[in-house]
């Protein structure tokens, strides 16, 4: 299990290949990649703040919950912080399992929890100033699925 909180960019394709190569017994690998979206071309950058002392432990706790609930061969979580350009990768998760439905559910679970329970805060820097991204009610509601 690799859980990384890092400022540096990463190569999602290389991570996916390394992850898949290491899970010989698994038939199913699901990945999620989150990118800095620039809907209308006005975004200059996204700044991600986090709580260094807590982040790694919070992610490890979420990953451990996923491994308790589903039979997973392996789990990968990478989450960046700092200043990111539009189009850049923010984070990725990957899950491996014998069965596709477990891999899908576990990856969706990880994303729902990382979104609302890992101590990251996003700020969008636009031409007209900066705005903290507001948490959505639907993201909190998504946790009730599990």
């Amino acid at each position, binding site marked *: 299990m690799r859980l990384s909180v890092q400022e540096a960019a990463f190569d999602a394709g290389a991570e996916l290949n390394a992850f898949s190569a290491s899970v010989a017994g698994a038939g199913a690998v699901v990945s999620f990649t*989150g990118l800095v979206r620039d809907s209308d071309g006005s975004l200059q950058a996204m700044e991600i*703040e986090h*709580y260094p*002392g*807590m982040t790694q*432990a*919070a992610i490890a706790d979420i990953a451990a919950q996923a491994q308790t609930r589903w039979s997973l061969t392996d789990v990968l979580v990478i*989450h960046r912080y700092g200043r990111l350009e539009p189009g850049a990768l*923010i*984070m990725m998760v990957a899950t491996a399992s014998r069965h596709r439905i477990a891999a899908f559910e576990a990856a969706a679970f990880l*994303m729902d929890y*990382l*979104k*609302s*329970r*890992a*101590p*990251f*805060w*996003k*700020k969008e820097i636009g031409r007209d100033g900066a705005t*903290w*991204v*507001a*948490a959505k009610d639907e993201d*909190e509601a998504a946790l009730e699925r599990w």
Partner: protein
Amino acid sequence: MEVLYFAWLRERIGLPRERVETTAPTVMALIEELKAREDRYALAFSDLKSLRVALDQKLSSLDAPLAGVREVAFFPPMTGG
């Protein structure tokens, strides 16, 4: 006790962390103490629905006791992923 602020709480209060001497028995009591200090604290803590707290780096609730706690962090709802 170390008190940490993140995201717009940090910006409104104007500092990322500070040492606070307090005998507040709960998180809520600590918030009331801080709000009474200065307007910037009152503003930062004006919307309790948008406030989250971690005690010693574990998510907790506003009515949690502070006995034995060394680090309190206040922040808005998280927006990771």
